[in-house]
């Protein structure tokens, strides 16, 4: 979250200075997905954190490609960044649900043990 807060203004400054034509709509989608993933705790899960990092790196790369005038590959990287951010979000949610399910069954097991005493 803190990292995102730092690199987001940096990216904006880069875009402004270069005057590149980064696909802003796609970039915004990626940023929103990254933010959502961070909010559900993607940084706490190794797998989710990996894809979150990939998304961020690809977003920066897409910006550089746009600045170099390679719009096509920039857009492709934005798509990759977006799908990585979405996967990070999904993995974080999945792990959270799986942890909740485990806790629920653990509670049942403890209750059974208490009843058996």
């Amino acid at each position: 979250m803190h990292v995102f807060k730092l690199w987001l203004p940096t990216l904006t400054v880069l875009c402004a200075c270069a005057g590149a034509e980064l696909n802003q709509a796609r970039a915004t989608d990626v940023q929103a997905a990254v933010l959502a993933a961070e909010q559900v705790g993607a940084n706490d899960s190794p797998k989710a954190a990996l894809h979150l990092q990939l998304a961020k790196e690809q977003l920066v790369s897409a910006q550089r490609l746009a600045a170099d005038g390679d719009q096509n590959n920039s857009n492709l990287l934005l798509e990759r960044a977006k799908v990585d951010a979405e996967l990070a979000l999904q993995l974080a949610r999945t792990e959270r649900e799986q942890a909740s399910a485990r806790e629920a069954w653990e509670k049942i097991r403890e209750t059974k043990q208490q009843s058996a005493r």
Partner: protein
Amino acid sequence: MSNTSRTLCISGFVGLALMGTACGGAAAPTTELLTARNAYATARNGEAATLNPTGVHAAAEALQAAEAAHKDDSGSQREKNYAYIALRKSELAIAAASEALARKEQQRAEETYKGQLEQRSDQATQQSSQYAQQLTQTQQQLQQNTQTLQQRQQELEQARVAAEQAQAELRQAEAIREEEGRLIISLSGVLFEPNGDVLSTLAERRLDTVAHALGAYKDRPIVVEGYTDAQGSDSKNLELSQRRANAVREYLERRGVEPERIRAVGKGETNPVASNDTAEGRANNRRVEIIVDRDNGPRSSERSDKVSENRPSSADNSAARPAPAPSTAPSSQSPMQRTSPPAQEPASPRQ
């Protein structure tokens, strides 16, 4: 067209594209495309197909784009990029399916837990009801016990009062003393016709009072002991005393004393309480003693047996007979006032 149908169509297209590529001898797919294909196969053949068909469909579309890129420009960066996206879409579909599965598990766990709690609650309610029932029963039992105890205490108190009254009546009417917890009522004077065992009217009246008093000593054994004076033979006296004791026993039974707790013993001329040398002494020796035994102490029969055992045999009767009573024998002393039996039998000549 539903997502599933569309996914199947796309899958068919992807399959045909793969076959075409193989037959046409096109360049081999990139590692990224191969990985994307495998991931898509996993998604399509796994739980994601049923739990997340939309996600699988999105993965199929992405793979279709990758296959198209492979067909158009095999080994290009574009192919790799689309393959990468297809791979992530498949992973996304699988992860979303896993989330749905986890949510179902959690729901199932919560329902199980709820059932568990309801079951425990039911058990607790049932147990509580049982405890309440047991408590009520215990309280009722306690109340009954308290009532029984109070009733018993009242009965005991009544019995105590009755015993005191009975003793008071007896003290007024007859000689009464206590020895080692036994109550001894001594009736002397004219009780029977001479040499007979028929009770006089006066004796019956006296026995009425005694019978009434004995009612206060329920459950305590009673022994009626008959005594004569020393006139006549031992055997006749023994037989007469037995008949007289029997007469008293039968009368008491008729007056309500339980037969199973009363017995009669003839003692003859033994244990005189006064000198047999005087008419007054002999009158006192002709008596009936009614012994109310202790609840659980030694029976009066033991006393009787001891007396019987202590009797000398006929061979050495004269030698074993105790010394004669002093001339100052308490002939004037009323047996009603004595608290211990005489220790010695007077040796007056038999008449």
